């Protein structure tokens, strides 16, 4: 049996084939096409031609895609969303879409309502649902909206109201109507969770086209009986059905896949990963084989959200970064020749001095024609390298949690520019397949489940609360397609709530399991 992994990046679409032992047997890289779909089809075609295997033995196909991110950034292909906030009489002082970019509100048509509902911090009722109110709203919106976002006050404590409203919508608009419930998407913080839920709802059409396109591309190559998965941004996979419910979770899956792939290639579970591309480098941290999650509000397309995102920092440094000297001061990046490197860099006969030229001059890499950079002064090249080293050192230090040196796994197409030693780094681990770490990451991913709720330890002891949260996370994982007996607990986060008289704690757990 074989697995196919495809990762659509900003510059390249990578495709790989793994055998039953998860060993890499073939990989291809081709430019990402403007419509993305053609690029996927092309790389799939090249992969299958080059690998020359029995296609009927392909059992799994995974896709890591930037399409949802692009749709938000470019404000394209977004669905018209209706927002139902359950919280009246509270929360009316800040309405949905406050502080959103206006062009985005226009695209989503800006329909919203603040309806009765919601809970208090301790799970008591804030106000009861009003079925008539919701049904009247649905009648008004009949031809106005293509997707609905439901957000309830403290729905992370109790989400039955959100689920009830979802049912009423299904009764009115049909089972297939796309509905996003905030309790399943974001964490505590109503505005940020609402924003994430609205974005999720807006992505329902994009994810539909993406998944259909991927399935059709596979079928066009004669691959029919495969399980298709999409990569999520926590380094795990989701089934197509799950992806349709949570398209927003594909955002930032690219850097995540690289980090996971790096872990797999290096066989290291806890380390820092540096993924160097053409224009930027991403730095992430592996904790027990998974990327560390960001704990602050993250902006997506200028909108403040709080759904799960990997803790990644990007530096404007890559294989195509332009090297300049101004007033005797050397600067590297942040601008880059990007995908034009094969025309513009000196080693390829171009006229722009790039980081790749420096690497070739110093003998760190062997690409292009090294005679074309022989004229560069060695001392100057070393000074540029020192500058690169400094940029990386600072970025790596930001991600550290202690002052001790860390080991660094180096991946990505631009990694030739990285010097052999960086201050604060104890050792640098490289792998010959590091260039396609992202596609490998996409294909080895497991399936996860998460659950978050506020528990009152004086009423439900800590042990019981932990068990309850874990059970609910396991259910989520199974829903996403994980094998029950392979599921294990990988993360527990406890945050006590201020002012609560009875020792209330926000508990968040995550489990991971193998694919069915």
């Amino acid at each position: 049996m074989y697995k196919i992994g495809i990762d659509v990046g900003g510059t390249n679409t990578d495709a790989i084939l793994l055998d039953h032992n998860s060993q890499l047997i073939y990989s291809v890289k081709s430019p990402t096409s403007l419509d993305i779909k053609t690029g996927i089809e092309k790389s799939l075609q090249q992969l299958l031609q080059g690998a020359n295997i029995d296609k009927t033995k392909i059992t799994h196909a995974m896709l890591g895609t930037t399409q949802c991110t692009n749709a938000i950034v470019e404000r394209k292909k977004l669905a018209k969303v209706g927002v139902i906030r359950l919280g009246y009489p509270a929360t009316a002082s800040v309405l949905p879409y406050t502080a959103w970019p206006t062009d985005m509100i226009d695209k989503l048509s800006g329909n919203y309502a603040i309806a009765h509902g919601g809970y208090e911090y301790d799970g008591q009722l804030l106000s009861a649902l009003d079925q008539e109110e919701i049904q009247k709203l649905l009648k008004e919106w009949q031809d106005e909206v293509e997707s609905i976002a439901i957000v309830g006050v403290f729905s992370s404590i109790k989400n039955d109201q959100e689920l009830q409203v979802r049912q009423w919508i299904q009764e009115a608009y049909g089972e297939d109507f796309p509905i996003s419930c905030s309790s399943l998407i974001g964490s505590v913080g109503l505005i940020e969770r609402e924003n994430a839920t609205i974005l999720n709802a807006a992505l329902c059409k994009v994810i539909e086209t993406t998944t259909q396109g991927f399935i059709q591309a596979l079928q066009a190559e004669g691959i029919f009986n495969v399980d298709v998965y999409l990569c999520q941004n926590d380094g795990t996979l989701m089934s197509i059905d799950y992806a349709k419910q949570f398209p927003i979770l594909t955002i930032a899956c690219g850097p995540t896949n690289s980090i996971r792939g790096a872990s797999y290639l290096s066989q290291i579970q806890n380390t820092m990963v540096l993924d160097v591309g053409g224009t930027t480098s991403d730095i992430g941290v592996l904790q027990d084989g998974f990327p560390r999650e960001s704990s602050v509000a993250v902006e997506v397309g200028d909108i403040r959200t709080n759904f799960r995102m990997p803790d990644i920092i990007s530096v404007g440094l890559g294989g195509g970064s332009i090297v300049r000297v101004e007033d005797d001061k050397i600067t590297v990046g942040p601008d880059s020749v990007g995908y034009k490197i094969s025309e513009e860099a000196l080693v390829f006969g171009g006229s722009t001095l790039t980081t790749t030229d420096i690497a070739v001059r110093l003998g760190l890499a062997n690409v292009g024609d090294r005679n074309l950079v022989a004229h560069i002064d060695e001392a100057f090249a070393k000074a540029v390298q020192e500058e690169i080293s400094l940029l990386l050192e600072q970025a790596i230090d930001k991600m550290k949690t202690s002052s001790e040196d860390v080991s660094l796994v180096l991946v990505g197409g631009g990694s030739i520019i990285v010097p052999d030693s960086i201050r604060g780094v104890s050792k640098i681990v490289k792998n010959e397949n590091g260039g396609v770490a992202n596609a490998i990451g996409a294909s080895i991913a497991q399936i996860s489940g998460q659950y978050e709720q506020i528990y009152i330890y004086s009423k439900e002891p800590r042990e019981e609360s932990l068990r309850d949260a874990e059970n609910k996370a396991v259910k989520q994982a199974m829903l996403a397609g994980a094998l029950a007996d392979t599921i294990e607990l990988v993360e527990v986060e406890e945050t006590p709530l201020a002012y609560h008289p009875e020792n209330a704690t926000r508990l968040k757990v995550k489990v991971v399991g193998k694919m069915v």
Partner: protein
Amino acid sequence: MRYLDQAAIEHIAIGAAFLGTGGGGDPYIGKLMALSAIEKNGPVKLYSVDEIADDDFFIPAAMMGAPSVLVEKFPRGDEFVKVFQKLAQYLGKEKIAGTYPMEAGGVNSMIPIVVAAQLGLPLIDCDGMGRAFPELQMVTFNLDGISATPMAITDEKGNIGIFETIDNKWTERIARSATVEMGASSLVSLYPTTGAQIKQSGVHHIVTLSEKIGEIIASKNQEVNDKLQHLLELVKGFELFQGKIVDVIRETKGGFNLGKMNLEGIAHYKNDQMKVHFQNENLLAEKNDKVVAMTPDLICLVDYETLLPVTTESLKYGKRVRVIGLPAHEKWRTAKGIETAGPKYFGYDYDYVPIEEMVKKEVAEHV
């Protein structure tokens, strides 16, 4: 008199969160409420303390409760006006000349702007703390013997109450229990005061100071070290530490968010450590096990690079911060001030030493 527009509000929110010393909640929601209110009702007038009449009457407005509840269940919007008018009515005052913040903090610097916008009232450039503190009696008006009550309290559901208490500490106790019942978040209006009392007992120019602090922090065309220098000059403060949070220990006790964090030094503090103790607000800082700053002086944590204020709820392992110490307003440095909000009140067994003296001593030891 001048008008507070959108840019002013953005800056005040940042500056007040800085003076909030880690407490006072996430400034984001407060800011959105204030921005929504002025968008609907137009900009708010800001009067300096010298511009108000001695016998005019003023009522502050504030939110009470858990910052972590506020981010999920925020007000309906008309409670501010309701609680404000209820108190005015109870006091039998037909004309309220303006409002002002109780404390400089992420949320409570913004609530009076909302009230002012909704009622077309001016905001007065003063507050009752010059920073943020966790309890209702920790107010400069209290130090001068002004009563917190009559006080009005309400929630988004419409429950409303008036208290008259025997002293201001009882106001705190009773209001806190009511707040917990109201869903851990309430709107309060208390310390009704005359213009003369504001001149006598308020902390003046705090809104303007917050705005200037915010302007410096938000400025895009300055290097971080220049920004820091400007900031320290403006607030007469000291950079106490640069470090990375390596541990945060939290506990919820008696309705408060208690804890301490350990910081490991970075840059030229590389071999040093710092511990900061907090109770909603940051209250005590120890460098290498020696106290270097304590309440009522201000201990402000800011992001290492952006200098944006860091609230105690958002503390996380690995975050890089600078610790800045500021002298408290002189009213807090009186015997009554130290008794009300000094280290011993919060259970730290130290005699209060002003921050500038501790810094001077440390510099002397190094030379």
